Each structure stands twice: as C-alpha cells, then as structure tokens.
C-alpha cells in the first residue's frame, strides 16, 4: 500500500512537472501554428530565433546589471525583430504558393542563426539567470517550482493577449482575413505583406518569451537546444491541429505531461518514441488535431 501511494504521488508529481514544462512547448507551438494559420507555411527558423532572442537577453544581462524581467523583455524584443527579419528574408519575396522554397529558405535561416550563436559563444553552454530560483514550494509530498508556475502564468497571459489581439482588434481581423482568403483580403485593401510581417513579429514575440522561459526553466542556454525544441514544437502544432491556437496550448501541456510520464515509467531511451507514437495516433485518428470536429481526409 505504501509503495502504491508512493508511486501515485510520484506519478502525479511527474505529470504536474511535465504540464508546467509543457507551457514552453505550447508557446513554441503557438508560434508555428500562428504562422501556419496566416500563411499556410512552416517557419523552421522559429525555435532558433526564439533561442537567439534569449541569448541576446542574456548578453544584455552580462553587460548591464539587468533584472530578469528586463532580460525577458530584451529577449522578446529581439525575437520580434528576428521574426520580422525572417519574414523579410525567407518569405516575403518567395511566391506565395511556393511552400517548398519558403520552407527551405527558413531552414537556411535556422542554420544561419544557429551558427551565429556558435560564433558568439564558441558553442559553450551559458548560465541563464533563473526566476526566483529559491521558490520551491513543498506541499505535503508534492513539490512545486515557483519559477515554473510563473512561466506557466506568463504562458497563459500571453496566450490570452494573443487571442484578444486576434479576435478583438482590427489588426487581428486583418490577420484572420489574410489567413482565410489572401486574395479577397487584398481586394478589401489589406496589405498582405504588412499583415504577414506583423503576424511573424507577434509569433516572434511569443517565441522570444518561450525561449527566455525555457532558458530560465533549465537555467542554461546552449545551441544544442534548438533542434529538439523545433521538433517538439512541430509535434505539438500537429497534435493541436495546424492553425488552432487553443489546440496548440492544450497539445503543448499534454505533450509535456505525456513525455515526462513515459520518462518516469519507461526511461529516457523510449520517451521520445512514445511521443512520436502519440503523434502517429493523432495523425491516424484525429488528423486535424485535438479540436477538430470532423475528420477531413483531404
């Protein structure tokens, strides 16, 4: 009985930790899904730009004695800028219906950003200031990391803000119009490129927050993080349903919990295999993601 209780507590704790960490996946997922929703394209450079933003935030904190909130703000601003630059260089001048070229160009952008990071740091892992590192609450048998709770809250707040912008402002309306029918939107006087670059910037902003949050949660920034984050972000995007923001959030939290659970019971070597299996299950049974209403094979 005691063993069973112990295991139950451990598993609940594991899932809870996973959900909290999942909020970083959710933010990366939202970025992918936002750009997909707006343009129908994948921006492979996205997670790279997010991490790069965190690096610049970190650099600022090394030169000035900045508070962690300031580091977050710088990361977000730089990532916004990077989002804009990535749009201008990898998407803007490539014909709208050429998905392949845009995808490839953004892969080139990812290589470029990654290598710039390496150039600046020699690839060395860098210490990233944590958020209230000492806030570790122990409630009965459970432990809750205060910083992750904060990260989780930031995730929720930025998502709500994003939903507000998308559904309550003119800018959001324009973005959605371009996403639904770009030609019709253009006929209504919406400047597609301007709208798209704003979408990329907003996605970049979220990415910067996600990058800084991931870095603060781990406490270390390193260039080896970009590819795993990109892959997890993409998986989250698909499980949540391409283009669905609430889907990406739920999927992010779910994947975080799911992988932590399988790490606990099956070990590290099989953890990612289960995540991939989860994706396949979704592709077969719910190809349009968590919130899809109908299964649409085309």
């Amino acid at each position: 009985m005691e063993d069973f209780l112990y295991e139950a507590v451990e598993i609940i704790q594991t899932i809870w930790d996973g959900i909290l960490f999942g909020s970083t996946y959710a933010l990366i997922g939202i970025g992918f899904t936002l750009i997909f929703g707006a343009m129908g394209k994948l921006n492979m450079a996205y997670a790279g730009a997010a991490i790069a933003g965190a690096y610049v935030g970190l650099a600022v904190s090394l030169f000035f004695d900045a508070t962690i909130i300031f580091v977050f703000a710088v990361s977000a601003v730089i990532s916004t800028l990077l989002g804009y630059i990535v749009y201008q260089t990898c998407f803007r001048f490539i014909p709208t219906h050429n998905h392949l070229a845009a995808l490839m160009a953004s892969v080139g952008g990812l290589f470029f950003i990654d290598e710039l990071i390496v150039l600046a740091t020699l690839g060395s892992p860098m210490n990233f200031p944590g958020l209230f590192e000492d806030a570790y609450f122990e409630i009965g048998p459970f432990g809750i990391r205060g910083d992750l709770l904060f990260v989780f809250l930031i995730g929720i707040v930025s998502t709500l803000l994003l939903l507000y912008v998308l559904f309550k402002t003119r800018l959001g309306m324009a973005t959605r119009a371009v996403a639904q029918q770009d030609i019709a939107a253009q006929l209504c006087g919406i400047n597609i490129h301007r709208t798209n670059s704003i979408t990329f910037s907003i996605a970049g902003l979220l990415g910067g927050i996600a990058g800084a949050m991931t870095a603060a949660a781990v406490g270390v920034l390193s260039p080896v993080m970009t590819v795993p984050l990109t892959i997890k972000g993409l998986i989250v995007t698909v499980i949540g349903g391409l283009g669905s923001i609430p889907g990406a959030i739920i999927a992010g939290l779910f994947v975080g919990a799911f992988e932590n659970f399988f790490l606990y019971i099956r070990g590290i070597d099989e953890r990612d295999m289960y995540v991939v299996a989860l994706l396949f299950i979704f592709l077969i049974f719910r190809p349009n993601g968590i919130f899809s209403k109908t299964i649409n094979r085309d």
Partner: protein
Amino acid sequence: MDFYLNLINTIGIHTMLGLSAYLLLQTGQLSLAQAGFFAVGSYTAAILTVIFQWNIIPSVLVAMLVSGFLAFLVGFPALRVKGLMLVVATIAFSEFVRMFFYNLKWRVTRNGEEIGPDGTMGFAEIRYFSDNGWSNFEVTLFLWSFVILIMGVIWWSDQSRTGAVLRAVGEDELAASSVGINLTVVKVSAMTAGGFIAGISGGLYAHQVTSLDHHSFTVLLGTFAIAYPILGGLSNVFGTLVAVIFIQGLLVEGLRFLGDWRMILFGLLIVLAMNFKPLGLFDKQTMDLIKKAIRV
C-alpha cells in the same frame, strides 16, 4: 586524387539521397523520412557485410529491398496526411527510426573481438572496401554505377508517361484522379521507389564512412535530402546533381578554407538561392537558357 574520389563518392551518395526525395516531390509529397530509409539501408547493408560477411552487392540490394518495403508500409498512412502535416509526420518517422538504431544492440564475437551495432556507441569498423583491397577508384566506379543507373531510370521516367503521371499528381490531385489516375498506386509507388533509392545510398554510405551511429541520421540529413531537389529544381535529375555539387562540393568542401565562417555562409547562401531561384536552379528560365544555348 584520393581526396577528389572521396568527394565524388560523397556527391554520389548525396545525389541518390536527393533523387529519392525528388521522386516524392514530383508527386507533391514533401517527405523528411528519407533520412530514416537511408538509416535503415545503411544499418542493413553494414550488418550483412560485417556480421554475416556477405558480399557488398547482395548486401546493398537487400538493404534496398528492406528500405523499400518499409517505405511501402509508410506510404499508406502517408496518404492520409498532406503538405506540412506530412513534413511533421515524416520528421517524426525518421526520429523514430533513429531512436530504434540508437537502442539497437547486436554484438557478435569474431576472432576474439566484439563487432556489430552497439547502441549509442555506434557501429564501427564497417571495413568491407579496405579489407577486400578495393582502391578508392574502384569504390567510385562501383558507387557511381548505381548513381548513373538510378539517374538514368529517373531521367527516362521523366520523359515517359510515368513522369507525366507523377507530375500530374503533384500538380493537382483532383484533376489527376479525374482522368483516371489511381492516386494510391502512384503515391505509394513513389514512396517505395524513394525508399529503394535511399536504401541503396545508405548501404553505400555505411561502407564509405566505416562507422555509423544515430548522430548521422538526424533531421538535418532529411532536410538535406529535400534541399537538393528543391535547390536544383524539379524539372530534371541534373538539377539535383548540380545542387549536390553546389552544397557538398562548394559549400561544405570548397568553402572549408573559410574556417568558422563557412557554416554561416552556408545558411545565408541557401536563403539567397531560394529568394532568387524559388523554383530551383534548373527552373523554367534556366531551362530556356540552356535550350537556347544548345540550339546556338
């Protein structure tokens, strides 16, 4: 000389890898699973020559069949997803394959030494070529006979009805199926053929580098596989070859003297190439120029 032969071999292997993605791209399937098929091919061929001490030719052929069969199986579920969903699904597939080999241990003892795949330590001493005294030139001839054969077959199919059917599916599935093309057959065959080719190139790759581990088969490799045909253009097989020469010959090998700046330039040049030639180096414009040049 040895160095150039090695470079030519690398170009050959990557050309085959690129061509396996080329076929799929023609049918509109953007697949990053080629890295997975490549990995299956390389481990299969290496296990056959090292553990079972087979000759290289049957080993590569079996590697081709195994990869092709796996691709055939992947082809059916892949029908259900399209476009960017397929990208993510195939990334996940190749990660799955990578993790399979990452967990694979198959050690046998020969002459007092343990050989075979050793999980995360990799699979070392796949020395078929040097153990049998093949000179690098012979390896090049052997390898390029596969490359030329594959290029020839695809070139021929491009000119024939087969190519037209593939392209029709790639351009507009609805229209293609309305003229009686069986989408399932076309797409699954393209996937299978891609698996065959990736299997061959993986089998040869294993013997060129002599050591395999999961680091070689990451998403990066799958990205390269689609990068070649996209950069080269989908109008003919030579586009892929030229793109491989551009990336492996020029960016990877040719710019090595730039030291740390090489990889930065690498990303930048891909971005530039896609901006200036979104349909690949061999797009319609280039083809027209070439046709004109040939006529003159």
